[in-house]
């Protein structure tokens, strides 16, 4: 798993505000080419990152954790799906699950706070929201608004299709937040042993 990097944060912040690179460039008084370079990890100077995040209405804070947040994990899932590796995409989702479970209270909430960019697959976008809603909800932590966006709910019921031999779960075996969003995933898949 890639560690959090500044380019992921900039891209997720821009997309969560529904901005194009040009729009972010004009808000940050930076040319579009530089936005593109930053998002590709070419220019990661603190000054540029800070300016681009400010243009998207975000700023950097430090949190007392070394674990990856949902925005970082979503980027990894998107990368694995693009490479047609659903097995690794699932591993990334499970790592997010473990990260959320390992932290408590506000820090757990922080891991779910920043809206992740789309993975380009609606089932995985819904699954990310479901996982964050489930794990934050179980500690009574307020949910970030992005997990309730219509784009995070499927029209019908779908499975993650990780392995063709995976059985489809009965609804009783699906965590409520997944069922609500139409993602048929087994609760057991998220158990650590």
């Amino acid at each position: 798993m890639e560690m959090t990097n500044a380019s992921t944060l900039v891209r997720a912040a821009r997309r969560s505000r529904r901005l194009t690179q040009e729009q972010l460039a004009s808000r940050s008084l930076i040319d579009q080419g530089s936005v593109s370079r930053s998002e590709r990890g070419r220019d990661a100077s603190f000054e540029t990152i800070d300016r681009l995040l400010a243009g998207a209405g975000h700023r950097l804070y430090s949190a007392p954790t070394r674990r990856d947040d949902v925005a970082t994990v979503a980027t990894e899932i998107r990368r694995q799906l693009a490479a047609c590796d659903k097995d690794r995409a699932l591993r990334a989702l499970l790592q997010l699950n473990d990260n959320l479970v390992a932290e408590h209270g506000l820090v757990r909430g922080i891991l779910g706070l920043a809206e992740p960019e789309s993975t380009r697959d609606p089932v995985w976008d819904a699954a990310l929201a479901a996982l964050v809603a489930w794990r934050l909800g179980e500690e009574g932590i307020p949910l970030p608004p992005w997990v309730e966006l219509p784009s995070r709910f499927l029209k019908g019921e779908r499975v993650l299709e990780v392995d063709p031999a995976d059985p489809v779960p009965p609804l009783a075996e699906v965590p409520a937040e997944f069922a609500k969003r139409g993602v048929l995933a087994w609760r057991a898949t998220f158990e650590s042993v």
Partner: protein
Amino acid sequence: MVATTQDLDSLHVRPGSDAAVATAAARVAQRHGWNPEWLNFEVTKADALPTLGRAVKWDTIYDRDDIVIQVASKESLLAMKLRANRPGRDTRDIRLLLRLCDIGTLDETEDLYEEFYAGDSLDPRAVAMVTAILAEGALEKPTQPAPLNL
């Protein structure tokens, strides 16, 4: 390094302290930027290890100074994966291990499982997974990794 696993489920087998091992592992994690719980003892709490049936065979892959590292045999790993049977998570491992263990029928799978977990039968979800895997037909046997040389 090619990342193939998130963590190592570990057992403490010799006299000593799990906490001391975990602390040393956390130091290694910090040095390499790994998950601090990459080496953990959760598996011992999960009723995953066979205790009543066939004994788990351990292969030693490292034995130097005071450190001995052993891994469970493929048959024992298959039995443990069949017990966990988490869709998406264990499916691929079960498929590979069935082939490595030369198991081609549901009956043989159940026999192996019951050898390790005496008096216990395969969970219906595991049966569904194994049935679907076997229905894929005979695929090539994966190459068994060469003995580790640490």
